[in-house]
Protein backbone atom coordinates (compact mmCIF):
# COMPACT_ATOMS: atom_id res chain seq x y z
CA UNK A 1 0.00 0.00 0.00
CA UNK A 2 2.62 2.44 0.99
CA UNK A 3 4.80 1.27 -1.85
CA UNK A 4 2.07 1.83 -4.42
CA UNK A 5 1.43 5.21 -2.93
CA UNK A 6 5.05 6.24 -3.14
CA UNK A 7 5.21 4.80 -6.60
CA UNK A 8 2.15 6.75 -7.58
CA UNK A 9 3.60 9.85 -6.04
CA UNK A 10 6.88 9.39 -7.81
CA UNK A 11 5.24 8.73 -11.16
CA UNK A 12 3.02 11.71 -10.69
CA UNK A 13 5.99 13.74 -9.62
CA UNK A 14 7.92 12.54 -12.62
CA UNK A 15 5.17 13.20 -15.05
CA UNK A 16 4.44 16.55 -13.52
CA UNK A 17 7.94 17.87 -13.42
CA UNK A 18 9.34 16.14 -16.45
CA UNK A 19 6.95 17.14 -19.16
CA UNK A 20 7.22 20.92 -18.92
CA UNK A 21 11.04 20.88 -18.84
CA UNK A 22 11.01 18.61 -21.87
CA UNK A 23 8.89 20.99 -23.84
CA UNK A 24 10.86 24.03 -22.79
CA UNK A 25 14.10 22.19 -23.58
CA UNK A 26 12.82 21.67 -27.09
CA UNK A 27 11.86 25.31 -27.25
CA UNK A 28 15.20 26.53 -25.94
CA UNK A 29 16.77 24.24 -28.49
CA UNK A 30 14.81 25.82 -31.35
CA UNK A 31 15.72 29.23 -30.03
CA UNK A 32 19.33 28.20 -29.75
CA UNK A 33 19.28 26.76 -33.26
CA UNK A 34 17.73 29.92 -34.65
CA UNK A 35 20.27 32.03 -32.80
CA UNK A 36 23.12 29.90 -34.11
CA UNK A 37 21.69 30.02 -37.61
CA UNK A 38 21.53 33.80 -37.64
CA UNK A 39 24.98 34.11 -36.09
CA UNK A 40 26.55 31.94 -38.77
CA UNK A 41 24.60 33.72 -41.44
CA UNK A 42 25.38 37.20 -40.15
CA UNK A 43 28.19 38.14 -42.60
CA UNK A 44 26.20 36.82 -45.54
CA UNK A 45 23.07 38.60 -44.33
CA UNK A 46 24.84 41.95 -43.97
CA UNK A 47 26.20 41.49 -47.47
CA UNK A 48 22.87 40.40 -48.85
CA UNK A 49 20.97 43.33 -47.37
CA UNK A 50 23.68 45.98 -47.69
CA UNK A 51 25.35 45.04 -50.97
CA UNK A 52 22.65 43.20 -52.90
CA UNK A 53 19.06 43.82 -51.82
CA UNK A 54 19.60 47.41 -50.70
CA UNK A 55 21.46 48.45 -53.85
CA UNK A 56 18.87 46.69 -56.01
CA UNK A 57 16.02 48.64 -54.47
CA UNK A 58 18.00 51.87 -54.44
CA UNK A 59 18.93 51.54 -58.11
CA UNK A 60 15.27 50.84 -58.89
CA UNK A 61 14.44 54.14 -57.20
CA UNK A 62 17.32 55.92 -58.93
CA UNK A 63 16.17 54.66 -62.30
CA UNK A 64 13.17 56.98 -61.91
CA UNK A 65 15.34 59.96 -61.07
CA UNK A 66 17.93 62.24 -62.54
CA UNK A 67 21.04 62.11 -60.36
CA UNK A 68 24.59 63.32 -60.93
CA UNK A 69 26.13 62.50 -57.50
CA UNK A 70 26.34 66.19 -56.50
CA UNK A 71 22.80 67.49 -56.25
CA UNK A 72 20.11 65.23 -54.72
CA UNK A 73 18.21 62.82 -57.01
CA UNK A 74 15.32 64.47 -58.83
CA UNK A 75 12.21 62.37 -59.54
CA UNK A 76 11.52 62.17 -63.29
CA UNK A 77 9.09 59.23 -63.47
CA UNK A 78 9.53 56.97 -66.48
CA UNK A 79 11.59 59.55 -68.37
CA UNK A 80 14.81 57.56 -68.35
CA UNK A 81 13.12 54.45 -69.70
CA UNK A 82 11.23 56.37 -72.35
CA UNK A 83 14.38 58.17 -73.41
CA UNK A 84 16.31 54.89 -73.63
CA UNK A 85 13.83 53.29 -75.98
CA UNK A 86 12.78 56.27 -78.08
CA UNK A 87 15.65 58.71 -78.08
CA UNK A 88 18.89 56.81 -77.61
CA UNK A 89 20.11 54.97 -80.72
CA UNK A 90 23.39 54.19 -78.91
CA UNK A 91 21.46 52.22 -76.30
CA UNK A 92 19.43 50.39 -78.94
CA UNK A 93 22.60 49.41 -80.76
CA UNK A 94 24.25 48.38 -77.50
CA UNK A 95 21.24 46.24 -76.60
CA UNK A 96 21.23 44.67 -80.05
CA UNK A 97 24.90 43.69 -80.13
CA UNK A 98 24.73 42.47 -76.53
CA UNK A 99 21.70 40.28 -77.24
CA UNK A 100 23.36 38.98 -80.39
CA UNK A 101 26.55 38.23 -78.47
CA UNK A 102 24.65 36.50 -75.66
CA UNK A 103 22.07 34.58 -77.68
CA UNK A 104 24.40 33.51 -80.49
CA UNK A 105 27.71 33.27 -78.68
CA UNK A 106 26.55 31.26 -75.67
CA UNK A 107 24.91 28.40 -77.64
CA UNK A 108 28.00 28.19 -79.87
CA UNK A 109 30.21 28.03 -76.80
CA UNK A 110 28.10 25.30 -75.20
CA UNK A 111 27.91 23.35 -78.47
CA UNK A 112 31.70 23.52 -78.81
CA UNK A 113 32.07 22.41 -75.19
CA UNK A 114 29.73 19.47 -75.73
CA UNK A 115 31.27 18.42 -79.05
CA UNK A 116 34.80 18.46 -77.67
CA UNK A 117 33.70 16.73 -74.46
CA UNK A 118 32.22 13.92 -76.57
CA UNK A 119 35.39 13.77 -78.62
CA UNK A 120 37.47 13.52 -75.45
CA UNK A 121 35.17 10.84 -74.06
CA UNK A 122 35.86 8.68 -77.11
CA UNK A 123 39.22 7.37 -75.84
CA UNK A 124 41.02 7.54 -72.52
CA UNK A 125 44.67 7.79 -73.52
CA UNK A 126 46.00 11.30 -72.94
CA UNK A 127 42.52 12.61 -72.22
CA UNK A 128 43.71 14.07 -68.90
CA UNK A 129 46.31 16.20 -70.65
CA UNK A 130 43.87 17.53 -73.23
CA UNK A 131 41.29 18.21 -70.56
CA UNK A 132 43.73 20.40 -68.65
CA UNK A 133 45.03 22.15 -71.77
CA UNK A 134 41.51 23.02 -72.90
CA UNK A 135 40.59 24.21 -69.43
CA UNK A 136 43.36 26.82 -69.16
CA UNK A 137 41.67 29.57 -71.25
CA UNK A 138 38.62 29.53 -68.96
CA UNK A 139 40.76 30.72 -66.08
CA UNK A 140 42.33 33.67 -67.88
CA UNK A 141 39.85 34.46 -70.65
CA UNK A 142 38.22 37.39 -68.86
CA UNK A 143 41.56 39.01 -68.01
CA UNK A 144 42.98 42.19 -69.45
CA UNK A 145 46.09 40.30 -70.57
CA UNK A 146 44.09 38.04 -72.85
CA UNK A 147 42.14 40.97 -74.25
CA UNK A 148 45.46 42.61 -75.15
CA UNK A 149 46.61 39.39 -76.83
CA UNK A 150 43.33 39.13 -78.70
CA UNK A 151 43.67 42.67 -79.89
CA UNK A 152 47.17 41.97 -81.17
CA UNK A 153 46.21 38.66 -82.77
CA UNK A 154 43.25 40.06 -84.73
CA UNK A 155 44.85 43.32 -85.75
CA UNK A 156 45.56 44.25 -89.36
CA UNK A 157 48.57 42.16 -90.42
CA UNK A 158 48.36 40.36 -87.08
CA UNK A 159 48.85 36.59 -86.76
CA UNK A 160 45.22 35.77 -87.66
CA UNK A 161 45.20 38.06 -90.69
CA UNK A 162 48.54 36.67 -91.90
CA UNK A 163 47.41 33.12 -91.25
CA UNK A 164 44.23 33.56 -93.30
CA UNK A 165 46.20 35.20 -96.11
CA UNK A 166 47.99 31.90 -96.59
CA UNK A 167 44.63 30.42 -97.57
CA UNK A 168 43.90 33.34 -99.84
CA UNK A 169 41.43 34.95 -97.43
CA UNK A 170 41.99 38.67 -97.10
CA UNK A 171 39.85 39.97 -94.29
CA UNK A 172 42.21 42.59 -92.96
CA UNK A 173 42.09 43.43 -89.28
CA UNK A 174 39.09 42.28 -87.31
CA UNK A 175 39.44 44.97 -84.65
CA UNK A 176 38.49 47.87 -86.89
CA UNK A 177 36.00 45.95 -89.00
CA UNK A 178 32.39 46.69 -88.11
CA UNK A 179 31.09 43.32 -89.24
CA UNK A 180 33.95 41.20 -87.87
CA UNK A 181 34.48 42.62 -84.41
CA UNK A 182 31.44 40.97 -82.81
CA UNK A 183 32.28 37.56 -84.31
CA UNK A 184 35.76 38.12 -82.90
CA UNK A 185 34.30 38.74 -79.45
CA UNK A 186 32.27 35.55 -79.81
CA UNK A 187 35.44 33.68 -80.77
CA UNK A 188 37.01 34.96 -77.57
CA UNK A 189 34.03 33.58 -75.59
CA UNK A 190 34.09 30.26 -77.45
CA UNK A 191 37.83 29.98 -76.79
CA UNK A 192 36.88 29.68 -73.10
CA UNK A 193 34.81 26.53 -73.63
CA UNK A 194 37.05 24.49 -71.32
CA UNK A 195 35.28 24.87 -67.97
CA UNK A 196 31.92 23.93 -69.45
CA UNK A 197 33.55 21.08 -71.34
CA UNK A 198 34.98 19.66 -68.11
CA UNK A 199 31.51 19.71 -66.56
CA UNK A 200 29.95 18.06 -69.61
CA UNK A 201 32.69 15.46 -69.69
CA UNK A 202 31.97 14.57 -66.06
CA UNK A 203 28.29 14.25 -67.01
CA UNK A 204 29.09 12.03 -70.00
CA UNK A 205 31.12 9.69 -67.82
CA UNK A 206 28.06 9.16 -65.65
CA UNK A 207 25.80 7.99 -68.47
CA UNK A 208 25.38 4.23 -67.95
CA UNK A 209 27.12 2.24 -70.71
CA UNK A 210 24.14 -0.16 -70.83
CA UNK A 211 21.97 2.58 -72.31
CA UNK A 212 24.29 2.95 -75.31
CA UNK A 213 24.58 -0.81 -75.70
CA UNK A 214 20.80 -1.19 -75.58
CA UNK A 215 20.39 1.57 -78.15
CA UNK A 216 22.97 -0.06 -80.41
CA UNK A 217 21.20 -3.42 -80.14
CA UNK A 218 18.00 -1.66 -81.16
CA UNK A 219 19.81 -0.43 -84.25
CA UNK A 220 20.27 3.22 -83.31
CA UNK A 221 22.99 5.03 -85.24
CA UNK A 222 25.43 7.51 -83.76
CA UNK A 223 23.13 10.48 -84.23
CA UNK A 224 20.14 8.63 -82.81
CA UNK A 225 22.18 7.52 -79.81
CA UNK A 226 23.16 11.13 -79.21
CA UNK A 227 19.57 12.32 -79.41
CA UNK A 228 17.97 9.50 -77.46
CA UNK A 229 20.61 8.78 -74.83
CA UNK A 230 23.28 11.48 -74.51
CA UNK A 231 21.09 14.56 -74.69
CA UNK A 232 18.39 13.44 -72.22
CA UNK A 233 20.97 12.19 -69.73
CA UNK A 234 23.01 15.37 -69.99
CA UNK A 235 20.13 17.84 -70.23
CA UNK A 236 20.04 18.90 -66.52
CA UNK A 237 23.73 19.83 -66.69
CA UNK A 238 23.25 21.58 -70.03
CA UNK A 239 20.28 23.50 -68.66
CA UNK A 240 22.11 24.70 -65.56
CA UNK A 241 25.19 25.76 -67.49
CA UNK A 242 23.19 27.44 -70.22
CA UNK A 243 21.49 29.54 -67.57
CA UNK A 244 24.75 30.53 -65.85
CA UNK A 245 26.58 31.18 -69.11
CA UNK A 246 23.80 33.39 -70.45
CA UNK A 247 23.85 35.53 -67.32
CA UNK A 248 27.65 35.60 -67.43
CA UNK A 249 27.71 36.70 -71.07
CA UNK A 250 25.67 39.80 -70.28
CA UNK A 251 28.51 40.95 -68.03
CA UNK A 252 31.28 40.95 -70.65
CA UNK A 253 33.31 44.07 -69.97
CA UNK A 254 37.10 43.93 -69.69
CA UNK A 255 37.67 42.52 -73.17
CA UNK A 256 35.31 45.02 -74.82
CA UNK A 257 36.89 47.89 -72.88
CA UNK A 258 40.48 46.90 -73.70
CA UNK A 259 39.89 45.97 -77.32
CA UNK A 260 38.19 49.30 -78.04
CA UNK A 261 40.34 51.40 -75.69
CA UNK A 262 37.22 52.18 -73.69
CA UNK A 263 35.37 53.67 -76.64
CA UNK A 264 33.12 50.76 -77.60
CA UNK A 265 34.15 51.22 -81.23
CA UNK A 266 34.41 50.67 -84.13
CA UNK A 267 31.07 52.38 -84.74
CA UNK A 268 29.77 51.19 -81.37
CA UNK A 269 30.15 47.53 -82.24
CA UNK A 270 31.92 46.64 -78.98
CA UNK A 271 29.78 48.96 -76.91
CA UNK A 272 28.30 46.07 -74.94
CA UNK A 273 25.68 46.92 -72.36
CA UNK A 274 28.04 46.81 -69.38
CA UNK A 275 30.44 49.16 -71.12
CA UNK A 276 27.61 51.51 -72.04
CA UNK A 277 26.31 51.48 -68.47
CA UNK A 278 29.83 52.18 -67.23
CA UNK A 279 30.22 55.15 -69.57
CA UNK A 280 26.83 56.61 -68.77
CA UNK A 281 27.15 56.09 -65.02
CA UNK A 282 30.79 56.69 -64.30
CA UNK A 283 32.08 58.83 -67.14
CA UNK A 284 29.01 61.05 -67.58
CA UNK A 285 27.80 60.55 -63.94
CA UNK A 286 24.22 60.06 -65.10
CA UNK A 287 23.47 57.72 -62.23
CA UNK A 288 19.70 57.65 -62.75
CA UNK A 289 19.98 56.91 -66.45
CA UNK A 290 22.60 54.21 -65.84
CA UNK A 291 20.39 52.65 -63.16
CA UNK A 292 17.57 52.39 -65.69
CA UNK A 293 19.97 50.54 -68.02
CA UNK A 294 20.85 48.24 -65.15
CA UNK A 295 17.21 47.45 -64.47
CA UNK A 296 16.51 46.76 -68.13
CA UNK A 297 19.36 44.23 -68.09
CA UNK A 298 17.91 42.76 -64.90
CA UNK A 299 14.46 42.39 -66.48
CA UNK A 300 15.87 40.85 -69.67
CA UNK A 301 17.90 38.34 -67.65
CA UNK A 302 14.82 37.49 -65.58
CA UNK A 303 12.71 37.02 -68.71
CA UNK A 304 15.33 34.72 -70.26
CA UNK A 305 15.51 32.73 -67.03
CA UNK A 306 11.73 32.39 -66.86
CA UNK A 307 11.55 31.27 -70.49
CA UNK A 308 14.26 28.70 -69.86
CA UNK A 309 12.52 27.38 -66.77
CA UNK A 310 9.19 27.24 -68.64
CA UNK A 311 10.60 25.28 -71.58
CA UNK A 312 12.56 23.08 -69.21
CA UNK A 313 9.80 20.45 -69.16
CA UNK A 314 10.05 19.79 -72.86
CA UNK A 315 13.76 19.11 -73.01
CA UNK A 316 15.28 18.72 -69.56
CA UNK A 317 15.11 15.23 -68.22
CA UNK A 318 15.56 14.56 -64.51
CA UNK A 319 16.08 10.90 -63.83
CA UNK A 320 15.79 11.17 -60.07
CA UNK A 321 19.32 10.49 -58.90
CA UNK A 322 20.85 12.95 -61.34
CA UNK A 323 20.83 15.80 -58.88
Amino acid sequence: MSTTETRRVTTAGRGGTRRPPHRSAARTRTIRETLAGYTFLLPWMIGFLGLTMGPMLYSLYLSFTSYNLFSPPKWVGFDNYIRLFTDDPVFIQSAQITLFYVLVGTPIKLAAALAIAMLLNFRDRGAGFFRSAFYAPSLIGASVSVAIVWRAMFNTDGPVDRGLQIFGINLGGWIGNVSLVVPMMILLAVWQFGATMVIFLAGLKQVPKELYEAAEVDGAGAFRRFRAVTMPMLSPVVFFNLLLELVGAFQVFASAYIISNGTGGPAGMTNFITLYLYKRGFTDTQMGYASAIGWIVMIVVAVIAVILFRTQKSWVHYSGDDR
Partner: protein
Amino acid sequence: MTATQIVTTGHRAPRKKMTRKKWQTVIWFVALLAITAIVIYPLLWLFASTFKPNSEFGQNQGLIPLNPTFENYGTIVEGIGGVPMWRFFANSTILAVSAVIGTLFSSSLAAYAFARIKFKGLGIFFASMIGTLLLPVHVVIIPQYIWFNKLGLIDTFVPLILPKFLATEAFFVFLMVQFIRNLPKDMDEAARIDGAGHGRIFWYITLPLIKPSLITGAIFAFIWTWNDFLAPLLYLNSPENYPLPIALRLYNDQTSTSDYGATVTASFVALIPILLFFIVFQRFLVNGVATQGLKG
Protein backbone atom coordinates in the same frame (compact mmCIF):
# COMPACT_ATOMS: atom_id res chain seq x y z
CA MET B 1 40.90 -24.90 -99.70
CA THR B 2 37.72 -24.10 -97.90
CA ALA B 3 39.42 -24.82 -94.64
CA THR B 4 42.26 -22.37 -95.27
CA GLN B 5 39.80 -19.79 -96.45
CA ILE B 6 37.84 -20.11 -93.29
CA VAL B 7 40.98 -19.91 -91.27
CA THR B 8 42.26 -16.82 -93.06
CA THR B 9 38.98 -14.97 -92.88
CA GLY B 10 38.65 -15.97 -89.29
CA HIS B 11 42.11 -14.62 -88.74
CA ARG B 12 41.62 -11.51 -90.79
CA ALA B 13 38.40 -10.24 -89.34
CA PRO B 14 39.73 -9.38 -85.86
CA ARG B 15 42.92 -7.92 -87.36
CA LYS B 16 40.88 -5.66 -89.56
CA LYS B 17 38.89 -4.55 -86.55
CA MET B 18 42.06 -3.94 -84.59
CA THR B 19 43.60 -1.75 -87.27
CA ARG B 20 40.37 0.12 -87.69
CA LYS B 21 40.28 0.84 -84.00
CA LYS B 22 43.90 1.89 -84.09
CA TRP B 23 43.22 4.24 -86.99
CA GLN B 24 40.33 5.74 -85.14
CA THR B 25 42.59 6.36 -82.18
CA VAL B 26 45.19 8.03 -84.38
CA ILE B 27 42.59 10.31 -86.01
CA TRP B 28 41.17 11.08 -82.58
CA PHE B 29 44.61 11.97 -81.28
CA VAL B 30 45.44 14.17 -84.27
CA ALA B 31 42.12 15.99 -84.04
CA LEU B 32 42.68 16.73 -80.38
CA LEU B 33 46.25 17.86 -81.03
CA ALA B 34 44.92 20.27 -83.66
CA ILE B 35 42.40 21.69 -81.21
CA THR B 36 45.12 21.98 -78.57
CA ALA B 37 47.31 23.90 -81.01
CA ILE B 38 44.50 26.39 -81.72
CA VAL B 39 43.59 26.76 -78.05
CA ILE B 40 47.15 27.18 -76.80
CA TYR B 41 48.48 29.25 -79.71
CA PRO B 42 47.50 32.69 -78.33
CA LEU B 43 49.36 31.92 -75.11
CA LEU B 44 52.43 30.62 -76.91
CA TRP B 45 52.37 33.68 -79.13
CA LEU B 46 52.19 35.93 -76.10
CA PHE B 47 55.11 34.20 -74.45
CA ALA B 48 57.24 34.25 -77.60
CA SER B 49 56.44 37.88 -78.30
CA THR B 50 57.86 39.01 -74.97
CA PHE B 51 61.29 38.33 -76.49
CA LYS B 52 60.72 40.35 -79.64
CA PRO B 53 62.31 43.79 -79.87
CA ASN B 54 59.89 46.62 -80.61
CA SER B 55 61.04 46.99 -84.17
CA GLU B 56 60.05 43.42 -84.93
CA PHE B 57 56.36 43.68 -84.09
CA GLY B 58 55.20 45.09 -87.40
CA GLN B 59 56.88 42.44 -89.51
CA ASN B 60 57.31 39.23 -87.58
CA GLN B 61 53.96 37.79 -86.44
CA GLY B 62 55.28 34.25 -86.08
CA LEU B 63 56.21 32.36 -82.97
CA ILE B 64 59.99 32.66 -83.19
CA PRO B 65 61.62 36.01 -82.43
CA LEU B 66 64.24 36.82 -85.05
CA ASN B 67 66.38 38.92 -82.71
CA PRO B 68 65.50 37.59 -79.25
CA THR B 69 66.05 40.08 -76.46
CA PHE B 70 65.24 40.59 -72.79
CA GLU B 71 64.92 44.35 -73.11
CA ASN B 72 61.12 44.27 -72.74
CA TYR B 73 61.49 42.76 -69.28
CA GLY B 74 63.93 45.49 -68.39
CA THR B 75 61.46 48.11 -69.54
CA ILE B 76 58.48 46.83 -67.61
CA VAL B 77 60.33 46.49 -64.31
CA GLU B 78 60.39 50.28 -64.26
CA GLY B 79 56.60 50.27 -64.40
CA ILE B 80 54.40 52.97 -65.84
CA GLY B 81 53.05 56.35 -64.75
CA GLY B 82 55.87 56.74 -62.24
CA VAL B 83 54.91 53.56 -60.36
CA PRO B 84 57.26 50.57 -60.45
CA MET B 85 55.95 47.19 -61.57
CA TRP B 86 56.43 45.54 -58.16
CA ARG B 87 53.91 47.97 -56.72
CA PHE B 88 51.18 46.76 -59.07
CA PHE B 89 52.11 43.22 -58.22
CA ALA B 90 51.96 43.97 -54.51
CA ASN B 91 48.53 45.62 -54.85
CA SER B 92 47.17 42.68 -56.81
CA THR B 93 48.56 40.29 -54.23
CA ILE B 94 47.08 42.21 -51.29
CA LEU B 95 43.68 42.26 -52.98
CA ALA B 96 43.74 38.62 -54.01
CA VAL B 97 44.96 37.29 -50.67
CA SER B 98 42.41 39.38 -48.76
CA ALA B 99 39.72 38.10 -51.10
CA VAL B 100 40.74 34.51 -50.38
CA ILE B 101 40.64 35.03 -46.61
CA GLY B 102 37.34 36.92 -46.71
CA THR B 103 35.67 34.51 -49.08
CA LEU B 104 36.66 31.41 -47.13
CA PHE B 105 35.62 32.96 -43.83
CA SER B 106 32.23 34.29 -44.84
CA SER B 107 31.25 31.60 -47.33
CA SER B 108 32.04 28.66 -45.06
CA LEU B 109 30.05 30.21 -42.19
CA ALA B 110 27.06 30.85 -44.44
CA ALA B 111 27.34 27.42 -46.04
CA TYR B 112 27.33 25.72 -42.64
CA ALA B 113 24.20 27.63 -41.63
CA PHE B 114 22.44 26.70 -44.88
CA ALA B 115 23.45 23.06 -44.79
CA ARG B 116 23.43 22.12 -41.12
CA ILE B 117 21.26 24.43 -39.02
CA LYS B 118 17.47 24.36 -39.07
CA PHE B 119 15.98 27.75 -38.29
CA LYS B 120 13.13 29.99 -39.27
CA GLY B 121 13.71 31.80 -42.53
CA LEU B 122 16.22 29.26 -43.82
CA GLY B 123 14.16 28.51 -46.93
CA ILE B 124 13.75 32.14 -47.96
CA PHE B 125 17.41 32.97 -47.35
CA PHE B 126 18.59 29.95 -49.26
CA ALA B 127 16.36 30.80 -52.21
CA SER B 128 17.66 34.38 -52.10
CA MET B 129 21.25 33.14 -52.11
CA ILE B 130 20.57 30.94 -55.15
CA GLY B 131 18.83 33.90 -56.78
CA THR B 132 21.94 36.08 -56.46
CA LEU B 133 23.79 33.41 -58.45
CA LEU B 134 21.84 34.73 -61.44
CA LEU B 135 21.89 38.41 -60.51
CA PRO B 136 23.54 40.67 -63.10
CA VAL B 137 26.03 43.14 -61.57
CA HIS B 138 24.44 45.98 -63.52
CA VAL B 139 21.72 46.37 -60.97
CA VAL B 140 23.94 46.79 -57.91
CA ILE B 141 27.17 48.53 -58.97
CA ILE B 142 25.78 52.06 -59.11
CA PRO B 143 24.31 52.21 -55.58
CA GLN B 144 27.35 50.38 -54.21
CA TYR B 145 29.56 53.03 -55.76
CA ILE B 146 27.36 55.86 -54.47
CA TRP B 147 27.43 54.49 -50.92
CA PHE B 148 31.15 53.75 -50.83
CA ASN B 149 31.64 57.23 -52.23
CA LYS B 150 29.52 58.74 -49.43
CA LEU B 151 31.60 56.85 -46.89
CA GLY B 152 34.75 58.38 -48.34
CA LEU B 153 36.14 54.99 -49.32
CA ILE B 154 36.93 55.72 -52.96
CA ASP B 155 40.58 55.08 -53.82
CA THR B 156 40.93 52.64 -50.91
CA PHE B 157 40.87 48.84 -51.02
CA VAL B 158 37.80 48.66 -48.76
CA PRO B 159 35.15 48.54 -51.52
CA LEU B 160 37.13 45.75 -53.17
CA ILE B 161 37.75 43.66 -50.06
CA LEU B 162 34.73 44.22 -47.83
CA PRO B 163 32.24 42.39 -50.13
CA LYS B 164 34.41 39.29 -49.94
CA PHE B 165 34.05 39.23 -46.16
CA LEU B 166 30.28 39.42 -46.62
CA ALA B 167 29.93 36.41 -48.93
CA THR B 168 28.42 38.39 -51.79
CA GLU B 169 29.66 35.85 -54.33
CA ALA B 170 27.02 33.13 -54.11
CA PHE B 171 29.14 30.74 -56.16
CA PHE B 172 31.38 30.01 -53.19
CA VAL B 173 28.53 29.60 -50.70
CA PHE B 174 26.79 27.22 -53.06
CA LEU B 175 29.99 25.26 -53.68
CA MET B 176 30.47 24.70 -49.94
CA VAL B 177 26.78 24.01 -49.23
CA GLN B 178 26.89 21.20 -51.79
CA PHE B 179 30.02 19.85 -50.20
CA ILE B 180 28.71 19.95 -46.62
CA ARG B 181 25.43 18.32 -47.63
CA ASN B 182 27.34 15.36 -48.98
CA LEU B 183 29.14 14.80 -45.68
CA PRO B 184 27.77 12.11 -43.34
CA LYS B 185 25.99 13.56 -40.35
CA ASP B 186 26.93 10.97 -37.71
CA MET B 187 30.03 12.82 -36.55
CA ASP B 188 28.02 15.98 -35.99
CA GLU B 189 25.44 14.03 -34.02
CA ALA B 190 28.08 12.29 -31.91
CA ALA B 191 29.64 15.65 -31.14
CA ARG B 192 26.27 17.13 -30.26
CA ILE B 193 25.54 14.28 -27.84
CA ASP B 194 28.89 15.06 -26.23
CA GLY B 195 27.63 18.59 -25.74
CA ALA B 196 29.33 20.44 -28.58
CA GLY B 197 27.52 23.46 -30.01
CA HIS B 198 27.46 24.55 -33.64
CA GLY B 199 30.56 26.66 -33.19
CA ARG B 200 32.67 23.74 -32.14
CA ILE B 201 31.13 21.32 -34.63
CA PHE B 202 31.83 23.81 -37.40
CA TRP B 203 35.40 24.43 -36.34
CA TYR B 204 36.51 20.94 -35.36
CA ILE B 205 34.44 18.71 -37.63
CA THR B 206 33.03 20.48 -40.65
CA LEU B 207 35.95 22.74 -41.59
CA PRO B 208 38.56 19.96 -41.68
CA LEU B 209 36.22 17.79 -43.72
CA ILE B 210 35.43 20.41 -46.35
CA LYS B 211 39.09 21.19 -47.00
CA PRO B 212 38.86 20.22 -50.69
CA SER B 213 36.10 22.74 -51.32
CA LEU B 214 38.03 25.34 -49.31
CA ILE B 215 41.04 24.82 -51.56
CA THR B 216 38.92 25.00 -54.72
CA GLY B 217 37.24 28.13 -53.39
CA ALA B 218 40.57 29.71 -52.45
CA ILE B 219 42.02 29.15 -55.91
CA PHE B 220 39.00 30.58 -57.69
CA ALA B 221 38.74 33.54 -55.31
CA PHE B 222 42.39 34.31 -55.94
CA ILE B 223 42.23 34.03 -59.71
CA TRP B 224 38.97 35.95 -60.11
CA THR B 225 40.21 38.79 -57.94
CA TRP B 226 43.54 38.80 -59.71
CA ASN B 227 41.75 39.14 -63.06
CA ASP B 228 39.04 41.53 -61.90
CA PHE B 229 38.94 44.71 -63.93
CA LEU B 230 35.60 46.46 -63.41
CA ALA B 231 35.70 46.92 -59.62
CA PRO B 232 39.24 48.34 -59.38
CA LEU B 233 38.50 50.50 -62.43
CA LEU B 234 35.54 51.98 -60.56
CA TYR B 235 37.08 52.43 -57.16
CA LEU B 236 40.78 53.17 -57.57
CA ASN B 237 42.03 56.48 -58.95
CA SER B 238 45.68 56.90 -58.05
CA PRO B 239 48.25 54.82 -59.94
CA GLU B 240 50.05 53.69 -56.77
CA ASN B 241 46.87 51.85 -55.77
CA TYR B 242 46.39 50.11 -59.12
CA PRO B 243 46.41 46.35 -59.35
CA LEU B 244 47.87 44.77 -62.49
CA PRO B 245 44.80 44.80 -64.77
CA ILE B 246 44.39 48.56 -64.41
CA ALA B 247 48.10 49.09 -64.88
CA LEU B 248 47.85 47.04 -68.06
CA ARG B 249 45.16 49.38 -69.26
CA LEU B 250 47.71 52.20 -68.97
CA TYR B 251 50.10 50.27 -71.19
CA ASN B 252 47.30 49.50 -73.60
CA ASP B 253 46.19 53.14 -73.79
CA GLN B 254 49.57 54.83 -73.92
CA THR B 255 51.57 52.54 -76.07
CA SER B 256 49.22 51.28 -78.72
CA THR B 257 51.84 52.21 -81.30
CA SER B 258 55.06 53.09 -79.52
CA ASP B 259 56.03 50.40 -77.00
CA TYR B 260 54.29 47.26 -78.09
CA GLY B 261 56.91 45.01 -76.55
CA ALA B 262 56.35 46.42 -73.08
CA THR B 263 52.56 46.03 -73.35
CA VAL B 264 52.80 42.42 -74.40
CA THR B 265 55.44 41.60 -71.80
CA ALA B 266 53.49 43.24 -68.98
CA SER B 267 50.43 41.24 -70.08
CA PHE B 268 52.40 38.04 -69.88
CA VAL B 269 53.95 38.86 -66.51
CA ALA B 270 50.49 39.58 -65.09
CA LEU B 271 49.40 36.08 -66.10
CA ILE B 272 52.36 34.26 -64.57
CA PRO B 273 50.86 33.75 -61.08
CA ILE B 274 47.67 32.33 -62.57
CA LEU B 275 49.52 30.05 -64.94
CA LEU B 276 51.63 28.82 -62.03
CA PHE B 277 48.50 28.22 -59.98
CA PHE B 278 47.05 26.34 -62.88
CA ILE B 279 50.09 24.15 -63.43
CA VAL B 280 50.36 23.29 -59.73
CA PHE B 281 46.66 22.79 -59.03
CA GLN B 282 45.33 21.78 -62.44
CA ARG B 283 44.12 18.33 -61.41
CA PHE B 284 42.52 19.87 -58.38
CA LEU B 285 40.83 22.66 -60.31
CA VAL B 286 39.61 20.47 -63.13
CA ASN B 287 38.32 17.77 -60.80
CA GLY B 288 36.76 20.37 -58.53
CA VAL B 289 34.89 21.89 -61.44
CA ALA B 290 33.88 18.47 -62.71
CA THR B 291 32.47 17.27 -59.40
CA GLN B 292 30.80 20.51 -58.42
CA GLY B 293 29.15 20.84 -61.81
CA LEU B 294 29.74 24.57 -61.77
CA LYS B 295 31.62 26.83 -64.08
CA GLY B 296 35.19 27.91 -63.45
